[in-house]
């Protein structure tokens, strides 16, 4: 059961990673025809991703919270036994980042509410960039920790 939840958690995070990266890059794009791969990657209607990103963020967080007790019992104790302090540290940061990101979602929704307000353009760009950073950090840390000691071993 925990392994299934962990896989779902990972799949949700992949979808979230793609969506928030598209949206974050779209806030830096200049209104010109996209030529390159990167340009086309950023050439999306950012606002259309907002609700999906909020749902994916919350679902990923809920699934992460469901597998967290098993992590605390099996994985963290193993890391402590192996004296892998840095691995525990990056996970501690991951959990705090997830909470900060979750609390920022109402404001994120407000900034991306259509019609987009020009007054929010800078805040929209930076908050989305920060959320993208959080998602990338949490994805990579989760992936690395799972590689160190995945469930079911």
């Amino acid at each position: 059961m925990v392994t299934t939840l962990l896989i779902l958690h990972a799949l949700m995070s992949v979808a979230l990673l793609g969506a928030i990266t598209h949206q974050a890059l779209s806030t830096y794009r200049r209104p010109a025809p996209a030529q390159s791969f990167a340009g086309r990657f950023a050439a999306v209607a950012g606002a259309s991703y907002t609700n999906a990103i909020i749902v994916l963020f919350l679902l990923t967080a809920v699934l992460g919270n469901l597998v967290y007790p098993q992590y605390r019992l099996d994985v963290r104790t193993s890391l402590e036994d192996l004296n892998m302090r840095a691995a525990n540290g990056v996970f501690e940061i991951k959990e705090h980042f997830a909470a900060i990101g979750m609390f920022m979602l109402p404001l994120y929704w407000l900034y991306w509410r259509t019609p987009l307000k020009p007054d929010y353009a800078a805040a929209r760009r930076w908050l989305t960039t920060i959320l993208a950073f959080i998602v990338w950090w949490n994805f990579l840390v989760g992936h690395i920790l799972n590689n160190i000691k995945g469930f079911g071993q």
Partner: protein
Amino acid sequence: MSKQSAFTVFALVGAITYMLAVTFNWPAFAYYPLLNHFDLDRALPPKTNGPSMLYYGWIVTAAAVALVLALAVPRAIGNKVPAALGWIVPLALIVYTLMYDRHWFL
């Protein structure tokens, strides 16, 4: 109360209060995964309880404070919060988190 005011106050207060709850250890409760037990008593538990988890308790503390303030702060004040705080606050909290957890890497 307007949506803009309530959302702004909830987000900023929630994120800040979460890191305050972590720093000063204000969990609403502790969870013991070995026993599948929630406990409001934060006194040091016996070792037979296994490890405690405070993460859920910190989130509930922050959410409760944020919800109360989001409902209580007048719209006139909530609407005056500069939009820039929407990214300055989480950025500052990220930096603070990295500093707070640096002891893991020393």
